[in-house]
């Protein structure tokens, strides 16, 4: 056959369209019958060819309908976005086939075949996920071993937190700074006292009983609040002209960056108390928070340093020439610009911090993932690891996605490239 005839063009649009779409339909029919009806229409071919037959048929079909400026709008849009060349056509097909093959079974497992009603493992009869597990353990996943009767204290703290964050957007700008100061300095103290108790007639609840998602929040929040300023100071210290400050900053950063978090946590729980004078005691949770804070501060320092180095020297010159000293120059001119530049990096570090919190299980503190790990070993609920960890993944994803969106939002708001 003459190869020119095989070249699709506008003149023989109709015939190539029919041929191409026909091949595509056969390809899709093949994959759909394969996936949903367990019937392989190309079963008589050698297994390798049979496996790839939908892809081959589809690619050939897409080749035939790849006609530029055909005049048909739909066809042009498809060609432009999915079918611009052979490589992209095959990529498009692979993605579509993967979606067809796996998304329905995933949805089946998560929703359609899943069990929601009941209270025991025996109520889970379908093939899908057993969400009863999450339902029954939900309270523990949220509050750990915190006594049920006292959980209002945690709820109240988080309500106050949400309310004050919300009020930042409602009240006029004038109050904003006060609310932020409240959130940074007063709220943590109130929340900590409220949750741990021991004053105002509140029952003392030791930190060992804290757990679940609320512990995730507590550890992350404190570590976030403290690691940021420490990181900024370390970054400034590393660029200092004073050798003592410079080299102790470098030493600190390289030490903490160079060790795995899990060993740091282990040290904080096991080794650190040995160095404390006899009779002094430091709460385990507090030690863990300090360890995570210092660990993440080292990363934060390098992120901030990146921003500081990106600023042109002229900014320093201008600030100095206006008579600003070191602190005024940095607080008013350098840091606002440098931090704005590295918002993506800061968000990165914060997300990593939140997702590092499950590691506190090594010292016996069980936040969300830790509680799930504990629940799945309960004899009544064996074999529920998938459900538990999918749930944990979902919760972490929601938290991290929210933070990520917020950071993008902030970036846009602070942009002066209008």
């Amino acid at each position, binding site marked *: 056959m003459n190869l020119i005839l095989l070249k699709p063009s506008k003149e023989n649009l109709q015939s190539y369209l029919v041929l191409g779409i026909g091949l595509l339909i056969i390809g899709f029919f093949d994959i759909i019958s394969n996936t949903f009806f367990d019937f392989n229409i190309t079963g008589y071919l050698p297994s390798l060819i049979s496996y790839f037959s939908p892809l081959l048929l589809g690619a050939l079909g897409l080749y035939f309908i790849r006609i530029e400026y055909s005049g048909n709008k739909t066809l042009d849009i498809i060609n432009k976005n999915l079918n611009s060349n052979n490589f992209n056509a095959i990529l498009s097909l692979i993605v579509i086939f993967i979606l067809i093959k796996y998304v329905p079974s995933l949805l089946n497992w998560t929703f359609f075949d899943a069990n929601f009603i009941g209270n025991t493992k025996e109520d889970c009869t379908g093939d899908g996920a057993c969400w009863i597990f999450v339902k029954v353990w939900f309270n523990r996943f949220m509050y750990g071993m915190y006594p049920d009767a006292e959980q209002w204290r945690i709820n109240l703290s988080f309500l106050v937190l949400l309310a004050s964050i919300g009020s930042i957007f409602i009240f006029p700008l004038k109050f904003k700074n006060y609310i932020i100061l409240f959130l940074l300095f007063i709220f943590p103290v109130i929340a900590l006292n409220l949750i741990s108790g021991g004053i105002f007639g509140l029952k003392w609840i030791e930190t060992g009983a804290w757990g679940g998602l609320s512990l995730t929040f507590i550890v992350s929040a404190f570590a976030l609040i403290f690691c940021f300023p420490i990181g900024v100071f370390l970054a400034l210290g590393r660029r200092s002209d004073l050798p003592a400050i410079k080299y102790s900053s470098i030493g600190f950063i390289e030490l903490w960056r160079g060790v795995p978090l899990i060993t740091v946590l282990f040290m904080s729980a096991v080794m650190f108390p040995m160095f404390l004078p006899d009779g002094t005691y430091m709460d385990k949770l507090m030690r863990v928070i300090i360890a995570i804070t210092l660990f993440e501060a080292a990363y934060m320092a390098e992120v901030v340093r990146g921003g500081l180095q990106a600023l042109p020297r002229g900014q320093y*010159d*201008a600030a100095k*020439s206006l008579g*600003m000293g070191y602190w005024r120059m940095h607080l*008013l001119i350098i840091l606002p*610009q440098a931090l704005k530049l590295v918002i993506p990096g800061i968000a990165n570090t914060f997300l990593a911090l939140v997702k590092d919190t499950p590691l506190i299980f090594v010292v016996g503190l069980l936040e969300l993932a830790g509680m799930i790990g504990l629940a799945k070993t309960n004899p009544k609920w064996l074999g529920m690891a998938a459900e538990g960890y999918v749930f944990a993944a979902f919760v972490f994803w929601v938290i991290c996605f929210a933070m990520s969106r917020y950071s993008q939002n902030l970036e846009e708001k602070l942009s002066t490239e209008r």
Partner: protein
Amino acid sequence: MSNIIELKNVNKWFDKFQVLKEINLEVKAKEKIVVCGPSGSGKSTLIRCINRLEEHQEGSIIVDGNEISENTKNIESIRAEVGMVFQQFNLFPHLSVLDNCSLAPIWVKKLPKKQAEELAMENLKRVQIEDQAIKFPNQLSGGQQQRAAIARALCMEPKIMLFDEPTSALDPEMIKEVLDVMVDLAKGGMTMIVVTHEMGFAKEVADNMIFMDEGRIVEKAKTNDFFENPKSDRTKLFLSQIL
């Protein structure tokens, strides 16, 4: 009249390379000096030494009665009296033009915010960009940015103004609007040291001209003498190329 700036035998090295060699310079109050010379001759370094953006290693620099050296405790208060305008404007991009101007008066001179902003508006009016006050520097043309930078320096009400090639980064069309502002300033009696290649400007305002080459002051003369009969051959060569 006494000298407001005095440099005596100033030497400066970048590593082993000597950028300033035996600089002696006296500037009287209200005097206008234009410094010219080929690039790399140390002009910018010279004026950057005057407010210690660069450190000199030998000799003494006295600004308004204060010796500037590594022992100077109040270098910030001396810098506050010496305004500087840069080739690249160096406005603060995260602040509006108004905030650029009022920031230092608020935080360094401790003026109340309202008063500082009035002062800023006054100076923006003086450089004729008061209508750009709420914009950010990136939204301004080069000439407007440089005028904003001049206004920012003026807001500190300095006794001395240093200009480091203020028109070199500008489109030819915008040079004039900046020079006009500088001429205005000169006529108002400001003490000025200007590094520039704008010889028209030099002839109009300068009391004295300085020609530098290879880190030395080759020639210092009254403006008329400098252009009419320069003494050194190097100066003659430079002028023949630039005029």
